[in-house]
């Protein structure tokens, strides 16, 4: 009797609990996953060593956006906490930096634009099942098979295709010389450019490179000139692109020059005279200097006032990435898999200068800019889409 009453009581209790549990599950399906307070985010980037100028742009863009969001009340009332670890210039240090970031169990991790660092970090981030957003420009970064990795910046594969095509078809040059920085970034692009030129039926008259620490590129420039080039495809970082343009001017070499966005980076233009900079073309991630939008001009000024480094295409990209994630978290909550799925489903999300759409590999940037320097002022000739977009 007693047993029967107890059983009935337990059955009733189980039924009530079961119904409550079912209700909770149903609620969980509808409501975003709860977020911790503060919401932990991680960033690894080069803040010291010879890649610091690049790496600080990632920090500046992401940190500036996080500060803005926090000042405006955070995400659903929760503040963002961005942990930053310095990778230096080495891939080993980049992996160590990532392990330190992972110890903090971040909801999302931002990686730098330095591809060898991202290659070294992808495996551990993938194992941690954390959305990993990078600006690394090696085309193969998103072909590593990680469903957690996304890229929000233009990559070398796009540039290697677009730069030769624009040079040959729009500028009518058929005897280019190539000069690229001799590292993963430049040499990868140089190979891609050579392949794209071959498809266009054009052979470069000279293929040269320089070490990242090289300061004198006059021998390479003289080779390109002596071999009868009518143009120069230049692929490097702002400091060395500045030197190449200066040395071309010193040697009296006048060639139509086209390159990556370093050609129009403010850090390049600051160290050139108007005559040295004038006429240079660039295709790359979109830069804020050419925008006429007062909001963007004001944003660039505030970034410069805070960091004393002019904002560039990477600053824009990392800034956009943080705001994209804000929108996603507001919809999906703080569930990593849901954030990943939302990133993979991104379509026409409007950033500061371009809109972002995820492709099957996890690349979100498909619109680049064509620029030309008028004196020391870059002008946007127009946006250009990668093939197929």
């Amino acid at each position, binding site marked *: 009797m007693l047993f029967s009453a107890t059983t009935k009581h337990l059955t009733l209790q189980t039924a009530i609990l079961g119904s409550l549990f079912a209700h909770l599950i149903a609620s969980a399906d509808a409501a975003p996953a709860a977020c911790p307070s503060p919401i932990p985010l991680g960033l690894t980037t080069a803040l*010291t*060593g*010879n890649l*610091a*100028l690049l790496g*600080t742009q990632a920090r500046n863009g992401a940190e500036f956006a996080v500060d803005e969001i926090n000042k405006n009340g955070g995400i659903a009332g929760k503040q963002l906490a961005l942990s930053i670890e310095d990778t230096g210039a080495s891939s080993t240090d980049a992996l160590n930096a990532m392990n330190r970031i992972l110890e903090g169990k971040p909801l999302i991790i931002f990686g730098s634009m330095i591809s060898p660092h991202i290659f070294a970090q992808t495996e551990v981030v993938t194992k941690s099942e954390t959305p990993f957003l990078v600006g690394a420009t090696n085309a193969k970064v998103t072909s590593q098979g990680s469903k957690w990795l996304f890229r929000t910046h233009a990559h070398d594969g796009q540039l290697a295709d677009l730069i030769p095509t624009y040079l040959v078809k729009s500028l009518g040059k058929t005897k280019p010389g190539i000069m690229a920085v*001799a590292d993963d970034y430049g040499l990868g692009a140089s190979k891609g450019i050579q392949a794209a030129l071959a498809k266009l039926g054009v052979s470069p008259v000279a293929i*040269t*490179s*320089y*070490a990242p*620490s*090289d*300061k*004198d590129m*006059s*021998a*390479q420039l*003289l*080779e390109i000139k002596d071999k009868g080039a009518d143009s120069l495809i230049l692929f490097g970082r*702002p*400091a060395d692109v*500045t*030197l190449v343009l*200066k040395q071309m001017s*010193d*040697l*009296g070499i006048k060639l139509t020059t086209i390159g990556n966005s370093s050609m129009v980076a403010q*850090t390049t233009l*600051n*160290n050139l005279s108007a005559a040295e900079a004038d006429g240079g073309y660039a295709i790359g991630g979109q830069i804020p200097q050419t925008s006429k939008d007062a909001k963007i001009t004001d944003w660039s000024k505030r970034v410069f006032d805070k960091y*004393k*480094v002019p904002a560039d295409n990477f600053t824009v990209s990392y800034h956009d990435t943080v705001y994209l994630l804000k929108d996603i978290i507001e919809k999906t909550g703080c569930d990593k898999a849901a954030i990943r799925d939302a990133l993979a489903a991104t379509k026409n999300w409007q950033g500061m200068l371009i809109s972002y759409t995820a492709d099957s590999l996890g690349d979100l940037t498909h619109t680049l800019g064509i620029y030309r320097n008028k004196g020391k002022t870059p002008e946007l000739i127009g946006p250009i889409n990668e093939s197929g977009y």
Partner: protein
Amino acid sequence: MGQLVVNGLALGSIYALVALGLLMIFNTVQIVNFAQGQLLMLGAFIGISGAVTHELPIATAWAITMAAMALVGIVFMALVYFPLRGRPPFLVILTTIAMGIVLENLALIIWGPLPVSLPSPVRGAPLRFLGVVVSMHQLFTFATLAAILLLQYILLTKTRFGILMQATAQDLHTARLVGIPVSRTIAVAFAFGAMLSGIAGLLVAPIFLAEPTMGGSLGLKGFVVSVIGGFGNLPGAVIGGLFLGLIETFGARYISSNFRDAYAFIVMIGVRVAWPRGLFGENSSAKV
């Protein structure tokens, strides 16, 4: 061809200036200062702070840089050399490498990562002769190197200070016993060594831009030049520097630009195999 010679010699002049700074310290304390390149970087940034940030006349900026670098040299000695003197030389050498890293990061904090240009102290249109262009700054660099070589030669061989330096290098303890102001001599050598790096920095910044990491590669090339020319040898440092500049420039033009840095080390190994004490022989004081 002529243009390659001019550009190779201009690059080699910078290497030679770094090597002359190394030589000054080596000839006194028999220590290779691997932070010489970072001292060059510091000189460039101090010059930029004066001439660009504070818009001082370029001659004033140079004078301030020289004074500041002399002070930096003495502080460097107090931090790196004095606490470790008498210990195995490799400890001091490792400490100079560590100090180089510290200086690089310090510059990053103070001046930031942006590359900056310094105005040249000389202006004017470049000279053009048979298609060869020689800039006024290149001519100034050649003239500065020649003047420093002459002054350093007189200082080391014709003055009382030069004799004191040699005595200190040969046997520090005996030098002290016979009344030579050893600490002061070493301090002056470090101050001169840092000033020479500062001059190299002031000459490099107008053509190569200044950035915190610029010193690493140039310092290493200065070391290679010293090995090629013979460590501590004055003509060896200059001829070795010019030789290396030409090798790199011609190698990049006629062999491959991909291996430009490798040429320096291949030549260094080749010279050491053929001439174990360098092209001009090492300073004999270490052997006495």
